[in-house]
């Protein structure tokens, strides 16, 4: 069935609430309003105020109490309203959530999922368009995933909730309204795996979250010029699942990594290093990166200049043939 990405998340959360009564949803405006993006729409009405909790306006409080609930045996799914508002909770996530299992020598599990709508492209004011993934991927003990399409959204959120790891769950907010097929009965691929989403032979383009759509569009445009791009949806940012990337780059000899976040000390830095280490003798060109610039996210009227788009991806693809 075709659903929007937002609705697919809603259905995935609903199914998680149905299948385990220790699952609780908490966050600002997630109850009566159904969240500012309506991802939790109707859930409080059907599951009650004890399972879908409108919290006070304090992100550190949301994550800190979720950790307490998790210690008590619950499975909290926290919504952070926008990417730029996760930072008040940074200490609870990085110093507490990430390290609990390690510090307790494996005795204390904190299966908290932190949902964050991330990325730009919606014409918003500051703090509403950021890509904070590297901060979290840099932190041992956290798992970080990003969905890019409705089917993955539906399955990945359920997999994240049912696992015992704390998971930072990144949702590409500008894709919330895009539709795609959801197979409700098929069994999903493992959560922490990347996936080839379009096959090709000339260049490997690696992306995640909102940029997967951009990469696919670039591949379609390139095909018209007779160039064959393979697109890989990374899906998991920590741990990385780079087997499919290495396999692909060994065939194509060229690799371009795309994300909205700035390039400096980023996921693409990590990918470039690892692909170079593992595929050195197959590479026809250095690994190129198409990313946001190393600046704060700019005002809305100039965000199109900041965000990687089809042209910038194709430009990088072209450049891999120039070496």
């Amino acid at each position: 069935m075709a659903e929007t990405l937002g609705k697919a998340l809603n259905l995935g959360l609903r199914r998680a609430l149905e299948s385990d009564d220790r699952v609780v949803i908490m966050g600002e405006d997630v109850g009566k309003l159904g969240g500012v993006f309506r991802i939790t729409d109707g859930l409080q009405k059907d599951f009650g105020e004890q399972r879908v909790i409108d919290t006070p306006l304090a992100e550190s409080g949301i994550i800190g109490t979720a950790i307490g609930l998790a210690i008590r045996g619950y499975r909290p799914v926290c919504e952070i309203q926008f990417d730029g508002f996760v930072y008040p909770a940074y200490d609870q996530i990085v110093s507490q959530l990430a390290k609990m299992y390690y510090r307790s020598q494996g005795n204390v599990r904190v299966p908290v999922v932190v949902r964050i709508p991330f990325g730009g492209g919606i014409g918003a004011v500051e703090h509403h368009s950021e890509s904070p993934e590297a901060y979290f991927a840099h932190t041992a003990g956290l798992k970080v995933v990003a969905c890019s399409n409705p089917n993955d959204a539906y399955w990945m959120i359920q997999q994240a909730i049912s696992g015992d790891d704390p998971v930072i769950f990144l949702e590409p907010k500008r894709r919330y309204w895009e539709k795609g097929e959801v197979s409700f009965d098929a069994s999903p691929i493992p959560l922490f795996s990347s996936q080839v989403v379009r096959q090709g032979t000339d260049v490997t383009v690696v992306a995640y979250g909102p940029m997967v759509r951009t990469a696919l569009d670039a591949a379609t445009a390139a095909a018209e010029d007779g160039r064959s791009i393979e697109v890989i949806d990374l899906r998991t940012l920590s741990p990385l699942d780079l087997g499919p990337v290495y396999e692909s780059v060994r065939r194509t000899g060229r690799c371009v990594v795309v994300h909205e976040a700035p390039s400096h000390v980023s996921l693409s830095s990590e990918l470039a290093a690892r692909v170079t280490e593992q595929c050195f003798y197959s590479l026809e060109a250095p690994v190129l990166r198409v990313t946001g610039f190393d600046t704060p996210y700019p005002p809305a009227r100039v965000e199109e200049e900041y965000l990687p788009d089809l042209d910038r991806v194709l430009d990088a693809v072209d450049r891999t043939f120039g070496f």
Partner: protein
Amino acid sequence: MTNGDRIPPDPEFVQLLDPDGERVEHPDYSVEFTPDEYRGLYRDLVIIRKLDAEATALQRQGELGIWASLLGQEAAQVGAGRALRPQDMAFPTYREHGILHCRGIDPIMPLGLFRGVDQGAWDSQKHKVHMYTIVIGAQTLHATGYAMGITMDGKVGTEDGEAVIAFFGDGATAQGDVNESFVWASVFNAPVVFFCQNNQYAISEPLERQTRVPLFKRASGFGFPGIRVDGNDVLATYAVTKQALDNARLGQGPTMVEAYTYRMGAHTTSDDPTRYRAGSEVEAWRDKDPIKRMRIFLTKAGIADDDFFTQVDDDAAKQAVELRERVLALPDPGPLSIFDNVYPGGSPLLDEQRAQQERYLASFEGGH
């Protein structure tokens, strides 16, 4: 984890002008305005409401990305704004358009942020109003630190000392930053007034999601006085805020003022309040309208007549048209402006990135 009891709906607060436009005596607070000053307050209220409505319309027409309306909160903002002295410093949220007006600031100034051409971009020191802060509560700590600086500079303790006012909402009172600012202000006896506009909602969440006690009572636990004022009464808000600011400038430390008011519109233009509150509740608050009560009072006291009211409406309408034209004329930032002002000392890496992007953009010129 139920929704808790409702906070008592009929609050005890300082009121000098009731919803019917009757003057009320208060043992501790009073105002003495000249007829001109009374008319000036009325004018402020009407103008900020009109400009606010114009901004909402501009958003509806796609000319602003978003707008946070102050509708219903005019008296709270004019009362506080007019109580400020030129040397005082204000730290606003994103809704304090009325405060900017009272500081004599061009109404175009905050509109760049909402149109998406800049992120505030003004000089805090020059205007004695810091930029808008969207991250809830963060500015209360900045206000407190600034106030500590005033003390360190020896600028408190006299009639012409300096004071700071920090604005925030009822929702913000839950944030760690706000509570920490209370601790700091108290411990360092900082000359700061914490001005909370309790408009009853934080987006969809009603007050009882943030507190089980009236907000102004929080202050005493931190060691400074808290007071609740009728935030729809411009006279009372002025009197209470002025007293709090004067106490601060005289070295008597912080005060929390809870301006009890109501957000008549949506949280922002992106919000749909019909999903979480009853129309009847909004209607009940319409009777407490801040402008209506001033108009009745001014008429009855013979301070203003219909000619005056018409004149004010005409002036407001004219200013709104002017503002609209200027918003439409706001230039979009250039593509390379992204790289400006990241570091005061610049950055070689960023210079390289900018040069690269410049070459990339140039490659499109002359046919690509």
